[in-house]
């Protein structure tokens, strides 16, 4: 979340000032002695190392400039670099050569040294060309804290400011600081009341108490987790190709709990890298080991497993490098690294640690986790169980006990419906124009009407295109008739369910006669039905013209598979007829709005038989209906009970009816949703769920160096090991992932602690002390405050890798607590605030923008963890890109959740990699395909559209306004002040209040003129609203709330 990305300024404009050069250069060149790592190496790396560096294969003229021994060695034409003598150095001569065939870098490299860079190189050679090891590859050096400030962070930062002649900014005011630290440590804003209380708190330790309280909040773990989920490329789907669903949230919740428990960072890493290999590994440690299972996987038919496995392991090495070590290792998959001393051998030795995992190159289909996976219980400890059980019991009780008022209303409605049943009903045969399914070719149409599915198969969605010309309108629905056949097992209607063994036998005997009929009555399951209609013919269902269905009935049903199941497009529910039924069976879907064949004569019906196991019919006849459906979705017993007038007053009858009402009546839907959500929640806290883990295969694969990274070109065998240029593993470390983990966290490791400290620094200051947090190598940026970075890294290790302690240290510095207001001088001197003469400011991350709106509106359901949820989506973006209908993979079609699942924190939003949540993606959330360490922070019109128009935010405005209208003080000004302060944690200035008053007055007038518009606006979202509030007044306030939620200040952390 760095500030608005501004490309570096053209250096030519800045010669002599060096404003936009990497931070080190903010010091004018003359002000300090040249430092090889800071001043010289970046120039050599950028311009020379690609051909004169570590990569032997790419090396030109057998010359290396990255190591002193070779750069300074005698050569035929004299040394490349002659210490103390630029003119006598070939390098210098080449740099200043006017000849195109001599000059370095050569013209084809498209690189030009600026005058300042040349001067630096000249001065460095003249000064003796002192080389130094790369700063990040030597362990952090202990430095004493400079004098001048009691807090070590301030001491280092101010020492630098003094050098630069800058002074720190004054302290931020209390409210701004409260908002800043709350957002940083929990991702949630303080309330207006919190802000007032904090501003009024005279206790000198008030801030420390605040920080302690925030760190103890369960939301701390959520806040910290988001960055790690990006780094670990956590998502809810497999990513490649069909992008089916997976289950890995137990790992995500482990991360949250680990941060909340303040698990020392070294253990945090060891358990994730090698939790499965720890002695007596606990379930928690197994879950943790799923870190390196978050990589994308595929089950795309036709792909080559060996190639896929190479891709998986390459992604694991890349992630280890960028997330943990701050190294861009990926280059070395194909060749020795151009800039850092990482050889291809080093690369494949790291690769070998992961190549022992017993995963498969094609796996993870049908919503079943790719192996190895384990069924385990969450590590979250939220303490909700007792409350959940009580609420579940109460809801079950309320649903079990007949409510006479509800029952009467329902019975009256159902009687009326039954009375209209079959009114004007007529059945019309239709002409089938075309029938198709994507992955098979065994469909026929008989007599232009009957669809025949000639062969068995696991599953299929069948698209039937029909012509309605000649059918009288209005058409009210569609009927699907399935006749039995003596050819089908047991003389039934379909071919399933065949057992898995029979399926396997059939697949093996491909092309031969089907396996002998099994001992069952063949049936089918219609898992979804969709209808579209248009004026232009089309062969398949039109996703953009789907017709809403008012309901479905059937001639009979298996109690476990009632007709309503096919209203849910997913594969796990659907209609199957009662096995006791005889003759043809049918299902009728009534359209929410009838259609006129004269206007839209072309109808498409998609029948999805997605349950698998050959639960497909053989023949299907399609009809349309006019008039009212003559069927019912009520069981016979319920129809009979309703037939007795006033029967619901008889307790026995009422009991029969209520069983049905409790399950299906619309009036009780909110209660059923709440119950289901609570049951899900309780289960997620108490039951085992599948999660992917690391393991070692019984027969681990051998690892070879792959020529050019190609799985098909293996060369020599390598064993697992750590890169040669870094310190060796501690004595006794094994050659397995546990050994790797122990190496990563050994106190002398030059990278791990620096990288971690830098990332936490970045979380609070927007930019790391190293501005390239994933690259501490040669091409990375030199630290802005190298001594501070080392001091913090050593302190972090010495503290036992205590994350909360480190964050406490940072947020209690005056550097952190400075005002973020920028003066013109500051903007001019240090536009990117690398010197920290003012407080950091950046836009909130995507998740926290939505969380902010949910919090201030009071809608937030602050439960921690659990399976991911599907809040509002304006269009089925999943189905648009998916393979829905021809795969058992899950996550092919979007089904929105309801109730509390709409209002969970955004890190719990289901992350489908090929179609990530658009309202989060608009604010730079990554698609989680690969390790992401730095999100961008762009500013786009799509963001404005989300904040103004996304139903999630519109609903939040409505609920936020409702809170304002419940404010005990009734005066407009008091409520406006509260609304503003709740939104941005400070009271409005007089001029701001005046604007708000104007908004309110204008919106009041607008909605007073048009109460229907007010009602329409207030209908956004599924949460209930207080109906006692007059709609125009509520809507007017909601507009003010929209205004506040759209303030730049509301989505910025100042």
């Amino acid at each position, binding site marked *: 979340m760095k500030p608005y990305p501004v490309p570096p300024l053209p250096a030519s404009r800045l010669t002599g000032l060096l404003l936009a050069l990497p931070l080190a250069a903010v010091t004018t060149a003359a002000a300090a002695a040249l430092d090889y790592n800071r001043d010289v190496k970046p120039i050599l790396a950028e311009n020379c190392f690609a051909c004169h560096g570590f990569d032997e294969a790419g090396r030109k003229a057998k010359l290396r400039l990255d190591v002193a021994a070779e750069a300074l060695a005698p050569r035929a034409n004299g040394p490349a670099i002659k210490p103390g003598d630029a003119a006598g150095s070939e390098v210098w001569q080449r740099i200043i050569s006017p000849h195109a065939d001599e000059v370095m870098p050569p013209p084809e490299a498209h690189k030009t040294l600026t005058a300042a860079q040349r001067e630096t190189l000249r001065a460095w050679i003249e000064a003796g060309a002192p080389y130094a090891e790369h700063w990040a590859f030597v362990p952090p050096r202990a430095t004493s804290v400079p004098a001048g400030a009691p807090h070590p962070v301030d001491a280092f930062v101010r020492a630098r400011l003094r050098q630069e002649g800058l002074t720190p900014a004054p302290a931020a005011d209390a409210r701004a600081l409260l908002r800043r630290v709350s957002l940083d440590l929990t991702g949630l804003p303080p309330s207006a009341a919190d802000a007032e209380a904090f501003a009024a708190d005279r206790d000198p330790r008030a801030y420390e108490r605040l920080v302690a309280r925030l760190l103890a909040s369960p939301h701390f773990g959520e806040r910290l987790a988001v960055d790690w989920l990006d780094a670990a490329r956590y998502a809810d789907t497999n990513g490649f190709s069909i992008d089916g669903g997976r289950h890995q949230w137990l790992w995500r919740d482990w991360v949250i709990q680990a941060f909340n428990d303040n698990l020392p960072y070294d253990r945090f890493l060891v358990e994730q890298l090698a939790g499965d290999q720890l002695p007596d590994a606990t379930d928690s440690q197994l879950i943790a080991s799923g870190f390196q299972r978050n990589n*994308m996987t595929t089950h795309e038919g036709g792909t080559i497993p060996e190639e896929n496995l190479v891709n998986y392991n390459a992604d694991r090495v890349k992630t280890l490098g960028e997330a943990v070590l701050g190294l861009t290792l990926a280059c070395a998959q194909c060749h020795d690294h151009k800039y850092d001393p990482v050889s291809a051998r080093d690369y494949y030795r790291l690769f070998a640690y992961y190549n022992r995992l017993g995963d498969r190159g094609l796996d993870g289909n049908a919503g079943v986790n790719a192996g190895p996976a384990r069924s385990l219980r969450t590590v979250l400890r939220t303490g909700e169980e007792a409350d959940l059980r009580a609420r579940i019991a109460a809801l079950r009780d309320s649903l079990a006990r007949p409510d006479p008022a509800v029952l009467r209303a329902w019975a009256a409605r159902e009687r009326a419906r039954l009375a209209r049943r079959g009114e004007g009903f007529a059945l019309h045969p239709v002409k089938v124009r075309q029938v198709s399914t994507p992955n098979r*070719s065994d469909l026929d149409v008989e007599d232009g009407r009957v669809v025949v599915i000639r062969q068995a198969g696991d599953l299929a969605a069948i698209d039937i295109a029909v012509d309605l010309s000649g059918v009288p309108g209005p058409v009210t629905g569609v009927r699907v008739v399935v006749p039995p056949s003596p050819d089908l097992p047991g003389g039934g209607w379909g071919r399933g369910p065949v057992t898995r063994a029979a399926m396997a036998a059939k697949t093996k005997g491909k092309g031969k006669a089907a396996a002998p009929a099994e001992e069952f009555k063949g049936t089918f399951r219609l898992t979804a039905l969709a209808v579209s209609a248009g004026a232009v013919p089309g062969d398949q269902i039109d996703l953009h013209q789907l017709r809403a269905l008012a309901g479905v009935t059937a001639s009979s049903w298996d109690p476990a598979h009632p007709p309503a199941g096919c209203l849910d497009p997913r594969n796990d529910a659907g209609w199957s007829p009662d096995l006791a039924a005889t003759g043809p069976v049918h299902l009728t879907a009534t359209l929410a709005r009838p259609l006129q064949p004269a206007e839209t004569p072309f109808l498409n019906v998609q029948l999805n038989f997605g349950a698998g196991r050959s639960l497909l019919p053989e023949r299907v006849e399609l009809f349309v209906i006019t008039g009212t459906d003559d069927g019912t979705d009520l069981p016979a017993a319920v129809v009979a009970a309703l037939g007795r007038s006033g029967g619901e007053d008889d307790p026995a009858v009422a009991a029969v009816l209520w069983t049905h009402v409790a399950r299906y009546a619309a009036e009780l839907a909110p209660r059923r949703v709440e119950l289901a959500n609570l049951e899900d929640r309780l289960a997620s806290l108490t039951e085992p769920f599948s999660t992917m883990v690391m393991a070692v295969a019984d027969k681990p694969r051998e690892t070879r160096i792959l020529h050019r990274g190609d799985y098909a070109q293996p060369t020599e065998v390598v064993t697992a090991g750590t890169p040669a240029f870094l310190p060796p593993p501690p004595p006794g470390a094994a050659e397995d992932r546990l050994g790797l983990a122990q190496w990563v966290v050994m106190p002398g490791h030059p990278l791990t602690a620096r990288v971690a400290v830098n990332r936490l620094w970045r979380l609070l200051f927007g930019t790391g002390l190293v501005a*390239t947090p994933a690259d501490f190598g040669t091409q990375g940026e030199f630290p802005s405050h190298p001594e501070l970075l080392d001091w913090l890294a050593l302190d972090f290790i010495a503290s036992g890798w205590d994350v909360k302690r480190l964050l406490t240290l940072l947020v209690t510095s005056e550097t952190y607590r400075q005002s973020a207001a920028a003066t013109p001088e500051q903007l001019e001197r240090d536009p990117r605030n690398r010197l920290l003469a003012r407080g950091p400011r950046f836009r909130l991350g995507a998740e926290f923008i939505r969380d902010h709106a949910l919090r201030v509106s009071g809608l937030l359901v602050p439960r921690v963890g659990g399976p991911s949820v599907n809040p509002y989506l304006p269009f089925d973006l999943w189905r648009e890109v998916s393979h829905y209908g021809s795969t058992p993979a899950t996550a092919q079609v979007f089904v929105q959740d309801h109730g509390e699942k709409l209002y969970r924190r955004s890190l719990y939003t289901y992350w489908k990699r090929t179609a990530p949540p658009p309202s989060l993606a608009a604010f730079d959330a990554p698609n989680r395909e690969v390790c992401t360490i730095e999100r961008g922070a762009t500013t786009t019109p799509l963001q404005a559209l989300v904040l103004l128009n996304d139903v999630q935010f519109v609903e939040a405005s409505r609920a936020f306004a409702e809170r304002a209208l419940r404010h005990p003080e009734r005066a407009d000004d008091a409520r406006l002040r509260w609304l503003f302060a709740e939104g941005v944690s400070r009271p409005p200035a007089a001029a701001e209040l005046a604007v708000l008053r104007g908004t309110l007055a204008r919106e009041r007038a607008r909605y007073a003129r048009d109460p229907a518009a007010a009602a329409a606006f207030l209908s956004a979202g599924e949460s209930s609203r207080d109906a006692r509030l007059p709609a125009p007044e509520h809507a007017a306030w909601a507009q003010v709330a929209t205004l506040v939620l759209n303030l730049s200040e509301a989505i910025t952390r100042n």
Partner: protein
Amino acid sequence: MHRAEAELLHHLTRRTFLGRSARGIGGLALGTLLTESLSAATRGQPGLPHFKPRAKRVLCLFQSGGLSHVDLFDDKPALHAHAGQEIPPSVKGSQRLTGMTSNQSAYPVVPPLRPGRRCGAHGTWISDLLPHHQRIADELCIVKSLHTEAINHDPAITFMNTGNQLPGYASIGAWVSYGLGSVNANLPAFIALVSQGTGKNPGQPIFSRLWGSGFLPASHQGVGLRPGAHPVLHLNNPPGVDRPQRRALLDDLARLNQAHAAELGDPETLARLEAYEMAFRMQTSVPELTDLSGESAATLDAYGPEVRKPGTYAANCLLARRLLERDVRFVQLFHRGWDQHIALSRQLPNQCRDVDQPTAALVEDLKRRGLLEDTLVLFATEFGRTVFSQGKLGDPAMGRDHHGRAFTVWLAGGGIKPGIEYGATDDFCYNITENPVHLRDLHATILHCLGIDHARFTHRFRGLNVRLTGVEEARVVKEILA
């Protein structure tokens, strides 16, 4: 708005201008910073284009799933002579096949599904499945020697659209938006439209990464344009909010934001104000764009009957023309369903019917309106299909497998030589015999037409100067340039 920006700029920089002119260059830096913040979405990278472009815009008609070059563009006498016979081992070679055909016991040659004819001045062969393409042959530069290493959809389509087989890279459209910026202040620079094919529905899955921004700023990702209520996600005001009301609210918002930005010295807030204004303009520019009522019956008829069905490839073609007319920099259509592993004889004619007439109509429409000369049109796919059958020969279920060693794409318009063929395959359209064009070369050529040297067009990421054409060799196919 603009006055307020100027005031803020003045406020932020007055010290420089009044008292520190000796260091005025610092003021310049600040001014640059501010201007970049305000218009980063519309400006490209400094120094671009590198040279005079031949095309200002790109239209990419992407046929997702693997279009059969054998059936549609690359007929050979040998295919008929060897119909039903095993492909010679010397042609097939020993390189890898996908897991779908690598275990087949026979690889019989299947000639094109339908006859075709030589068309245009050059006499290029085009299948009768594409009669409208036959008509516009003189506009097309048909490249018959494209090749890719990828043999399966996900890696292949990702490679074709981002220059890498693995995720994490920026799409071509995002690169172009990043490099050249936008010339339309009311619409995004990169717009993507998806349609389902009728040959195979749903087709192979596609992914947002194909129009994603990868490591480039997210503001360069392709914005989806869809039919129906939400042509751009979240475009519409919520129910009960009208346009004048929204305008007034945005004015209030601007007032509050400006005051606060001035107080804090915050250029980002000014950029945000500009983004809100563009969002407001998009609320009229997008409906105006998608409103086809001004199109003549003749135009609509030219695109074929499906143009009247929103969301189809035909309808998207017409929208593409309207987008290009409005100077949207990069327009990309994805048409799904070109993956004829099975039932080639049923699926392929449907896919062809989806795209043939609208594609030809679009090229002609662009030409008629003078847009073709500075619009580069690319008709591409992720790989071709095998000359041998997948499945049993003669079975209606027979199809063709993926084939990356040689396949056909065509280009037209800005900077491209019309009415030519480039590159050739062997008698079995299996291997390239002359002028191979790797997809990287195609990328380099696209950038070249836009005035960009692919080798110098880089973005710094993870320590590397990353480019669309990657680290391997890539060359501009100069021979096809006009």
